[in-house]
């Protein structure tokens, strides 16, 4: 063995920032997370030039997957122009030379925090969701070792009990975002803090979704055509946010997840959360051209 077999020619920075060993570990763990949908796989999770909790898990996955042809879209709260989305998009382009886009349909890889775009993702697209807390059991069991045992035993009784207590107390399940969901009939997973509106988009989807928590060092996945079922009781059906009837004051689009914007007069205005969908709607309205793709929701309802 010589030093040269151990080393490589000097580079100011590896392609995509992460070195070979970090990428290989992520590749190995991504395969395992696809093989056992919804099951949290531990990984080393390297430090990246961004603070923990700011999308470092999603970023590591994106940096491992991209090549100079990968067209990347990054959104935060549904918006491409959100400051953190802009920062992550700029970083990926800077270290991997990837083209970027805001058009969901044009993207090969979409990294997102808290939303899934409204347009249907295709089988050639990968969705990378940033995850702050990968453990759906944390509210009932903060200790990770015990929670892991509960997953191993498929022991979700306390989870069900918590939902039941909410119904008794408040007449409904009070979970807002991050709605716990059963994947492939075996593992309860957090879909990341996406609204309830977005969870059905993961069920039997055409695209691959990878969820990665950098700070907590866990990665999991929902392959295409995989059952993702929100935990519900048969007599209390799953309810998405009541946004189906709302109209975006800026674009006029209706039937999608909205941001509520408090007004001076005490009322609320609404803006579509998927900012690029809003832009496309305005373009179509102004006669600049139709670029909108098919959406998951139709007339404010998820079909089936």
């Amino acid at each position, binding site marked *: 063995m010589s030093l040269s077999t151990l080393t490589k020619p000097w580079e100011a920075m590896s392609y995509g920032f992460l070195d070979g060993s970090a990428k290989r*570990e992520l590749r190995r763990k991504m395969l395992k997370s696809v093989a056992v949908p919804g099951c949290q796989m531990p990984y080393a999770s390297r430090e990246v030039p961004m603070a923990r909790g700011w999308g470092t898990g999603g970023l590591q996955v994106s940096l491992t997957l991209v090549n100079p042809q990968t067209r990347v879209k990054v959104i935060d709260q549904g918006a491409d122009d959100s400051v953190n989305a802009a920062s992550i998009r700029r970083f990926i382009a800077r270290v991997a030379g990837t083209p970027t886009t805001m058009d969901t349909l044009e993207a090969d890889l979409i990294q997102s925090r808290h939303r899934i775009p409204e347009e249907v993702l295709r089988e050639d697209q990968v969705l990378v969701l940033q995850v702050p807390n990968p453990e759906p059991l944390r509210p009932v069991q903060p200790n990770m070792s015990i929670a892991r045992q509960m997953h191993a035993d498929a022991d979700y009784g306390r989870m069900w009990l918590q939902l039941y207590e909410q119904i008794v107390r408040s007449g409904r399940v009070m979970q807002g975002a991050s709605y716990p969901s059963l994947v492939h009939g075996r593992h309860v997973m957090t879909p990341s803090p996406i*609204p309830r509106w977005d969870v059905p988009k993961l069920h039997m989807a055409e695209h691959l979704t990878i969820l990665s928590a950098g700070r907590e060092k866990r990665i999991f996945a929902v392959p295409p055509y995989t059952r993702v079922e929100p935990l519900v009781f048969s007599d209390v059906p799953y309810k998405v946010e*009541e946004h189906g009837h709302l109209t975006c004051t800026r674009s006029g689009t209706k039937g999608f997840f909205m941001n509520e914007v408090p007004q001076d007069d005490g009322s609320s205005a609404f803006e579509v*959360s998927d900012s690029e969908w809003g832009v496309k709607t305005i373009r179509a309205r102004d006669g*600049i051209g139709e670029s909108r793709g098919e959406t998951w929701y139709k007339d404010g309802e998820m079909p089936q």
Partner: protein
Amino acid sequence: MAYVATRGGERAIEQSERLFREEMGSFDRERVEEVKKGLPYLIDRVMGEASLYDEDLAALALAQTGGELYEAVLLLRAWRTTQPRLQVAEPIEQDSLFTHRRISAAFKDIPGGQVLGPTLDYAHRILATDVLQGVSYAPDPVEPATNPSPAYQPSVSAWQAENDLLDSPAEDPTKGNDIPDLTREPLLFPSKRAHTLQSLARAETGGVLALGYAAMRGYGQAHPTVNELRLAEAEIAVTHPDGRQFSAGRVKVSQAEVVDKKGEKLGIGFAATFGWNEVKCIAAATLDLNSPSAEKGSATEEEFFLYHTEGVESSGFCIHFKLPHYVTFQSSLDAMRDAKAKKAAKAREPAE
């Protein structure tokens, strides 16, 4: 197009970074040297928390972040993670440490002697305000001892083990590349011993102190006696691919052993870190001492203190709450309003 403000975000983040950097202004190697020379204990702390021993890089990180400690450590960790792991150095035994300071609170005197070394422990903490009046601060020169203490010292716990006062931890035969590396593997519980010690070595000083102090005040079962505290330099011995062993230099290290009565013998807690950082080592060793008997979910349980003293993770998560959360908030609002409406509807129902 009314909607498109898409470039606004990018411009805003760029300008906000400029605003931050404006305060430090331009800087060069000279400032880095000045930081390195004037603030060695801060450099030590940063190197320890970054788990990267390089005084120049640590000084650079401090200069570049204006002393924002969490940012400096993150900068170094992010740099460190891209570096190839070429070699694993030989293990270092306590008696091969070039020792500057070594004290034991357990005995009046110990084999090898108490060596006070450099410390502010007995200094009167009086601010040298004269300096602000233009008087320069010139510390009195050190007078060499007539009988210099030996640079290499045996460990106190070795003597205790010989005298059947404690059971030394079983020797771990794991070598070289097989030693688990926290930066390449996730921390899982029950934690591997190597991971525990590595995790404490790079823990955030304030975090370790807070939890260690909680244990000392009585939230832990064990009450620490400082068996031995050392500030030293360690020789980094590595093997060249041609088989020869050589020294890659010396690094400053600190370590602490704390003990407590455990049945008929002493229980021992240990911690070590890059750089000289006594508070961190004593606090970390106290946590280590307490962890075997800790209750699940208590502050002295390994999972609890290792997770919560990880400075890059905890500080990052703390500041992430500044990010917009309006989607999750909206989702909660929807559930709240619906629950309220249901309650109101129920109240309107006539009683049966």
